[in-house]
């Protein structure tokens, strides 16, 4: 079975982000980019599936040459091969999903893993869109997965609990934290990854259905106020909560 993992290359969540001069993009200067953290769970699950039932793990990524760094990491973790769907210009979620769907069809993958969301734009929809375009089943935000004879049993996180879903291949699974503990890239893997070439081809053309018109920083939080440090401050605190914050 061919298993595809779609990987995005995103700013490290610890990076200090500032908005670029065009007001529509972030300023990439001094920002380190990493594999989208949720995609690491997706890669790990694909590798575990291959270890259990055999198959081949193929990494797909839409973007520029910079994405190769994250692709290399996925290969060093143990993926078999990779395709970079090249496009240097900005794409919205629909245009990304379209390019991925074309390539998934092209390679004939039956099982596709995504992270549940990419932490750059946080749209949480590329996996679902891709499934829709392909006509695949889709289970999102998965925290536990069992695949047997083409039958899938997945637990997904829902508000306040878990939902158990049964479906069948072909399918798209989007991974949530807790699904597994991603392995580190291994020395053996990195030596092997050095010898693998990343296949490059232009990403299929799909029209963006949305555009970023402006990027703004969130409002700065008001600094906290220390009213006192012992019990004598309680009456004043109660008054402020009532009259100023109006929460009690």
């Amino acid at each position, binding site marked *: 079975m061919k298993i595809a993992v779609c990987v995005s290359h995103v700013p*490290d969540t*610890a990076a200090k982000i500032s908005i670029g001069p065009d007001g529509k993009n972030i300023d990439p200067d*001094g920002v*380190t980019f*990493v594999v989208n953290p949720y995609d690491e769970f997706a890669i790990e699950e694909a590798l575990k599936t291959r270890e259990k039932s055999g198959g081949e793990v193929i990494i797909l990524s839409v973007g520029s040459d910079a994405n190769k*760094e994250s692709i*290399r*990491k996925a290969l*060093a973790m143990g993926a078999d091969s990779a395709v970079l769907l090249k496009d240097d210009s900005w794409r919205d979620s629909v245009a990304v999903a379209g390019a991925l769907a074309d390539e998934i069809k092209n390679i004939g993958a039956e099982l596709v893993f995504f992270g549940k969301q990419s932490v750059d734009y946080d749209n949480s929809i590329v996996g679902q869109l891709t499934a829709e375009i392909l006509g695949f089943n889709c289970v999102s935000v998965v925290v536990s997965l069992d695949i047997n004879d083409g039958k899938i049993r997945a637990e997904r996180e829902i508000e306040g609990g878990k939902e158990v879903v049964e479906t069948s291949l072909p399918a798209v699974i989007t991974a949530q934290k807790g699904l597994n*503990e991603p*392995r*580190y*890239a*291994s*020395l*053996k*893997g*990195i*030596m092997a990854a*050095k010898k693998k070439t990343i296949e490059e081809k232009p990403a299929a053309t799909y029209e963006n259905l949305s555009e970023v018109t402006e990027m703004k920083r969130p409002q700065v939080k008001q600094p906290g106020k220390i009213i006192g*440090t*012992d019990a004598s401050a309680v009456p004043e605190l109660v008054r402020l909560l009532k009259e100023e914050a109006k929460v009690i």
Partner: protein
Amino acid sequence: MKFKTDNSEIQDFLNDASNFKGTCEGVYFPQNEADIIEILKDANRKNLQVTVSGNGTGLNGGRVPEGGIVISTNNLNRVIEINEEQKYAVVETGVLLSEFHTMIEQKGLFYPPDPTEQNCFLGATVANNSSGAKSFKYGPTRDYVEELDVILPTGDKFTIKRGEISADGFVLKLTTDSGDDIVIQLPRYRMPDTKNSAGYYCKAGMDAIDLFIGSEGTLGIITRVKLKLIDKPENILSCVVFFSDENDALNFIAGAVDLSVNNDDSPDQINALGLEYFDKYSLRFMKEEYPQIPAHAGAAVWFEQEINDYTEEILLDKWVELLSEHNADIETAWIATNDKDREKFKDFRHAVSSKVTEYITREGIRKIGTDTAVPKDQFPEYYNFITKLVEENNIKYIVYGHAGDSHLHLNMMPVNQNEYDLARNIYHRLCEKAVEMKGTVSAEHGIGKLKRNYLKLMYSDENLKAMAKVKRTLDPNLILNIGNIIDPEILKEV
């Protein structure tokens, strides 16, 4: 200037990471040098004990007050200058090391000292001459201090630049900023040839700045530091490798140390930045949090080396060859592919220390941990000696640390008072053995208030008195950081 006395507001200043607890009358929060001068002058008049505090991560009770008042350095936290061209930074003492690292690296520069605990103040790392994994290649904090502003215990200010004042033999003449001359007679002991932070740095003809670095706040309060920076390495190879047999791991380290120290700066030959060791018990401690640790692992080594696009493949091959020679498990070895992964390995190293602390807190027991180092050629014998002694006495322990510098932390976790007493005796024996091998009782944590007895194993009464005289010359009324390094009884005698 704020002075706090309320128990809830000062209790954070009454202990450090050693869990040694003290008392004080209150804590001052000076905003600048003038405030500190005022406090010290006043304390001299009133004969009041003063303890200077960093961020409280010390492991020897150094910042823990035994009465008197505390000076917090929390508000002296400005980065004054980062000079990218001439590669230096000027900072106030209370700047956090972790934040400093990030700030410097964003400018493409690098500050090598990397103690495992990064949540400490820069001035405190100078006062302790802190070191870390990468000190194997880059050296300890001392090597990066170019200038210091110190407020002497008397309240006089003293600014000192490296290369400006050297001792004439063992006599050091200093002139304070207000023009007073101070003549210091230095002790004449020979310091161990290992990484060392036990007692004052003393050598014939030494640079005066070196006396203050590592003096644990006994000779003055550091307010401002000029630190040397280097270029940020293009890239760093970082690996955690597992071995079934701990002897293989130790031999691999010995091999890598030899290649590294004999490297004549060839970028495509093995030259480790650091070589950190974890024994099987350390790995067992970590297994729950790190399920990626392979089941068969009997020891692990974390190593790093500077690389670039050209040397990466060559060096990977060389390391794999060396690892294979020593039966390392190449299949399971972890490798970092970016800065974020590298941070994860650093966290892994830090997690060993914090897991121990968590465990002892949960079990309600006290730990006893060594900080000894010995010369390189004595290391295998020392390692066998320490592990054998603890095993024979059936005390639960783990051992890990800066093996590249022949410097390990053996942590004993005795479960009852009997075992605790036994562990203390063993600790004493381990320190004695290190000194017999011409090593040190403290390679990085310092002496503080908790390890004074062990300093006595290294230096004679005469030398300890000579140290006390240095202290008395600079602190005639004995008010600042009393109890650190030197026994207060000896201080009174001289």
